[in-house]
């Protein structure tokens, strides 16, 4: 099982698509590591600088419909090779969400109110986010405060995370 904690990266925009996460011109790469320098390089978001803002971040907090568009699993891979194993949002595009769990990565849905509260209380600060999938609790910590938030994932998704993804699970059971 992967590690699900580290510094937060706040992307306050909905409908961030997989072309923005990793542009199609890098789909000719067959090594995941080759995606590393190109994560979010086409993201349209005021004040965001992909060259400096991604470094050392491990958990993305964002808005609705993250990962819409292309089915490319290169999007979760580009996150993974940059050390980002968790994305937290009010909603995800179906294929992106499934790709995350298939790779043993977490796509956690929280209510829009909860996400907005996290943005309001922590969005401008340096935060540490820790996800415990045993207890289903996210801990968000800044210099001034700590907040614990419960979340839900299905038993099937939990099984995928624990068995290391869908390939091993499917080959075992089907």
């Amino acid at each position, binding site marked *: 099982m992967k590690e699900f904690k580290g510094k937060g990266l706040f992307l306050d925009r909905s*409908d961030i*698509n997989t*072309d*923005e996460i990793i*542009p*199609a*011109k890098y*789909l*000719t*790469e*067959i090594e995941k590591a080759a995606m590393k320098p190109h994560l979010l390089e*086409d993201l*349209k978001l005021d004040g965001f600088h992909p060259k400096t803002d991604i470094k050392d971040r491990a958990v993305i907090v964002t808005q*609705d*419909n993250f990962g*819409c*568009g*292309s*089915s*490319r*699993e290169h999007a*979760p891979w580009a996150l993974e090779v940059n050390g980002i194993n968790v994305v937290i949002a009010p*909603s995800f*595009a*179906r*294929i*992106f969400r*499934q*790709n995350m769990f*298939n*790779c043993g990565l977490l796509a956690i849905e929280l209510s829009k109110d909860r996400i907005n509260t996290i943005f309001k209380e922590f969005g401008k600060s340096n935060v540490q986010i820790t996800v415990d999938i045993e207890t289903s609790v996210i801990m968000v910590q800044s210099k001034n405060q700590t907040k614990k938030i419960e979340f839900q994932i*299905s*038993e*099937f*998704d939990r*099984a995928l995370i624990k068995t290391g*993804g*869908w*390939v091993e699970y*499917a*080959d075992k*059971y*089907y």
Partner: protein
Amino acid sequence: MGKTIAEKIFKAHLADEPFGDVSVLKLDRVFCHEITTPTAILDLVSRGKDRVFDPDKIKVVIDHVSPAKDSKTALQGKILREWANRHGVKDFFDIGHNGVCHAIFPEKGFVHPGFTIIMGDSHTCTHGAFGAFAAGVGTTDLEVGILKGVCTFKPPQTYKIEIIGTLPKGVFAKDIILKVIKEITVNGATNMVIEFRGSIVDEMTMDQRMTLSNMAVEAGATSGICLPDMTTVEYLWEFIKDDYSSRQAALDTFSRFRSDDDAVYAKHKTIDVSDLEPLTTFGYKPDNVKPVSQMKGIRLDQVYIGSCTNGRLEDLRIAAKVLDGHTINDHVRGIVSPATPKIFSQAMEEGILKIFMDSGFCVTNPTCGACLGMSNGVLADGEVAAATTNRNFNGRMGKGGMVHLMSPATAVASAIKGEIFNSSLYCEQGR
């Protein structure tokens, strides 16, 4: 309680429901292309699981970058070619025989009503036009599909969208789907299947239904399904005539999958298209949609006709009708890519390619290339394109480029004018 077509297909293919959370479905088809499949193949090899569940149910094409443009894309083709060979996958479409996946696979008769289909490509929803459950998946799902012939989905919720009224002249299936996406937004159907219904859909040809279903994913939908009918049977007849005693017998079989009258829908919307104008997109989301009349005057550098949305014969016929006798504007680079060799060949026989060439269009081989900025027509920073494709995302056709999505008729009218323009002026000239 009645069932929707998606529910009936799920029931007929259900292999497991682990933890009661998801449905594991048996697959009738696993489609593969050279962009998302090689990584799946390499991963299977590295796990010591280099097997395929059924070589006859796996269909393979090289389409995204064809011919290969550099060493990396050549390697992707090589990995796919060698893999198909060693596993005895007979339906493998390589250069000279290849076309855009979502055009060539239906054309070969590989898509039947009631089928379950996955592919590592989001526009796999196109095949729903045949009354199949077809969905785009990531590489890991594709890998498991190849290995075990199964895939997981949440039990389907269906969004019923009825298209009614009388379609005005110069307004096409592309305008209808842009209208649908505008109305329900880019995540309006996330985790749902769209079922396209209504008199307008009933009257549509398969080419038109494929345009409609193709963009279901732009509203977040898992699949975009049209119910199978005699139009579906006629399209498929040459491939299925040995399996059924008559067309009616085929229809009777396929009709078992049609949604029941008392089926339960998660959402329902009716759209009357009687007053619909030709539409186009602005901005970087497919739900940023405006009438062409409000977008007139936007100067274009490139016009692209092709893709899995609008690269089929009917699209080229309509475009050629508008284009005939005109030349495209000096500052516009016109590119047309017929979606398959068959379409290319038929367009040649019908004189369509000559009309395109005489007007100043470059006719390229069938490929996905330009649509996603990989090859055959990449935009430079600051350039503007009108395209019959499906995505206007930032950087989609090239970094810093802007894409306006529209119908083939609007696109060629815009190519003639040099700026976004309504096709009606050229249509009214009786051309």
